[in-house]
């Protein structure tokens, strides 16, 4: 069994039948991290107990127990997820020494399925970014070309997964932060329907938009991970009581008779890189050849998705990040004495010093949009447009079963290219944010490679969006595309 290519089921099966030990499996990946991560900077913190966790899995198997469907599978966890006893920073100085006393529900579910945690993955600070350049722990590099960004905010997850430094990884997606880096790094990334996966123990950025999801090398692995991670959680009141479908068992590539929607407003070709356009057209043709019907749908309000998203996300973030005040945990600024200290000075310096620039920008934007005199025109109005947008998507899904679109306008860009113009950076998310606004599930599947004009050939993913709670349809179409792509499970060569 080649651990560079093995699926979750293959690993779990081999570990359970003692063909390979969980310890050996973990060592394979920790060695790869040692070998390659200095080039990528995809990990912020390594879990020194990884082999101990693996040994415990082997011990349970020796006793005749079944550790679960992910027995011995080593995972990287994005640093937005609380991991008990293991530093969790959200890539921010304000949490640089924070050690959670509990696991996020997602992490607990992975562990109780037999997964081993290798460490915490790099990201944009507080998940605010599309390039991993706002991390307080350094940029993360794209393994396909280390001068380029891996995408963001789940940049570390995408880079580590693409370089196969872990067998599976978790990401979070608030405006595209799983799908965009997955596309830039040539891996599968799934953002489920809002409410499918618990947000308990995940550092909150924008609570009505945030969702966790798997980032994997194949669609089959994503389907199994989704099943393990999903389900009602009493600790997150927004989770759905709907029974979790058997995503893995019911995964198939039958697309005959499916209606694949193309959003008319997304197919404007100016601004779209020719290789991205070609990749999307090839994907449509592939599905058409396999018996799917291509239909055009219209979602006119997508024209306003980016401003509506950033307005709402910044507003919610300004509220969520108010808790970082230096009182109970996290960074506290140095003061000579607390006794005479003005409280606002205490908060102001702690937060001013602890947060990075992009985070401060978004907090201020959100504060403005929620403030007296502006709340109606900004935050309320954005909420109204959001409801109308969701309704337009529901109408579109009456006409099609899944929507296919680009993930981004172009492949991965160079580190440093866009960071000085925040607005230009925001426009990266043009095809992904509407999914979060409407609460729909979306995924990115590797389908093409760009032509090599000096920077090497780069991955291009295509995006699938489904109706609420219809992840199975989306996964199945994803599998059909993966099988036709010739790229299934392709691992980036980090030697270059």
């Amino acid at each position, binding site marked *: 069994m080649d651990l560079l290519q093995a699926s979750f089921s293959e690993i779990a099966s081999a570990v359970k039948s003692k063909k390979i030990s969980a310890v050996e499996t973990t060592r394979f990946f920790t060695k790869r991290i040692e070998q390659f991560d200095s080039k990528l900077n995809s990990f912020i913190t390594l879990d020194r107990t990884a082999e101990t966790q693996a040994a415990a899995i082997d011990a349970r198997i020796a006793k005749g127990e079944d550790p679960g469907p992910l027995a011995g599978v080593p995972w990287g966890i994005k640093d937005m997820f609380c991991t008990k006893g293991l530093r969790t920073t959200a890539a921010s100085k304000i949490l640089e020494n924070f050690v959670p*006393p509990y696991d996020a529900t997602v992490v607990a579910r992975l562990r109780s399925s037999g997964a081993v945690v290798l460490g915490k993955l790099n990201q944009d600070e507080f998940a605010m970014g599309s390039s991993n350049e706002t991390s307080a722990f350094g940029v993360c590099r794209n393994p396909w070309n280390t001068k380029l960004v891996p995408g963001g905010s789940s940049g570390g997850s995408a880079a580590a997964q693409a370089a196969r430094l872990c067998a599976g990884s978790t990401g979070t997606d608030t405006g595209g932060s799983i799908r965009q880096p997955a596309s830039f790094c040539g891996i599968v990334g799934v953002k489920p329907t809002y409410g499918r996966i618990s947000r308990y123990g995940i550092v909150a950025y924008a609570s009505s938009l945030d969702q966790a999801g798997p980032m994997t090398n194949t669609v089959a692995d994503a389907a199994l991970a989704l099943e393990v991670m999903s389900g009602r959680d009493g600790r997150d009141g927004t989770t759905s009581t709907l029974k979790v479908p058997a995503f893995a068992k019911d995964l198939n590539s039958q697309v005959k008779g499916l209606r694949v929607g193309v959003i008319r407003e997304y197919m404007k070709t100016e601004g779209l890189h020719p290789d991205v356009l070609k990749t999307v057209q090839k994907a449509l043709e592939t599905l058409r050849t396999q018996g799917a019907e291509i239909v055009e749908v219209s979602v006119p309000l997508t024209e306003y998705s980016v401003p509506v998203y950033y*307005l709402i996300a910044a507003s919610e973030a300004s509220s969520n990040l108010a808790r970082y005040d230096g009182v*109970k945990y996290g960074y506290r600024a140095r003061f000579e004495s607390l006794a005479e200290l003005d409280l606002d000075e205490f908060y102001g310096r702690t*937060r001013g010093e602890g947060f990075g620039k992009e985070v401060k920008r978004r907090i201020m934007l959100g504060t403005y949009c929620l403030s007296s005199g502006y709340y109606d025109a900004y935050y309320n*109005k954005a*909420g109204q447009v959001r409801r109308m947008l969701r309704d337009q998507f529901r109408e579109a899904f009456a006409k099609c079963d899944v929507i296919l679109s680009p993930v981004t306008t172009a492949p991965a860009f160079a580190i440093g290219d866009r960071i000085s113009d925040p607005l230009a950076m925001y426009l990266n998310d043009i095809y992904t944010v509407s999914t979060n606004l409407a609460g729909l599930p979306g995924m990115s599947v590797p389908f093409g490679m760009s032509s090599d004009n000096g920077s090497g050939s780069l991955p291009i993913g295509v995006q699938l969006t489904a109706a609420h709670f219809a992840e199975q349809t989306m996964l199945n179409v994803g599998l059909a595309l993966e099988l036709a792509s010739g790229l299934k499970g392709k691992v980036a060569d980090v030697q270059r």
Partner: protein
Amino acid sequence: MSSKEILSKEEIAHIAKLARLKISDAEAIEYAGQLSKALGYFEQISKVNAGAIEPLVTPSDIENLWRADEAHKELSAEELVANAPQRTGQLFTVPPVV
């Protein structure tokens, strides 16, 4: 406010105070430009005719969730103060609040 108008020093100071962020003069100037550009960009949503539609605050359809009022043992006080920047026993040491 159009994108041509830059947020004033007073407006930036007001927002920073509301957000409890102490920023330098140089930061204030930098953010004023960037924030003004972003706010100008947001203004296009005023073109949408939304009438009296109720804003969507969450995509979740769930309303009230009930559970029995039972106490459960969760985390200990010691675990919860373990990350305190400054502590006095199991109390968080803070500046005067009142």
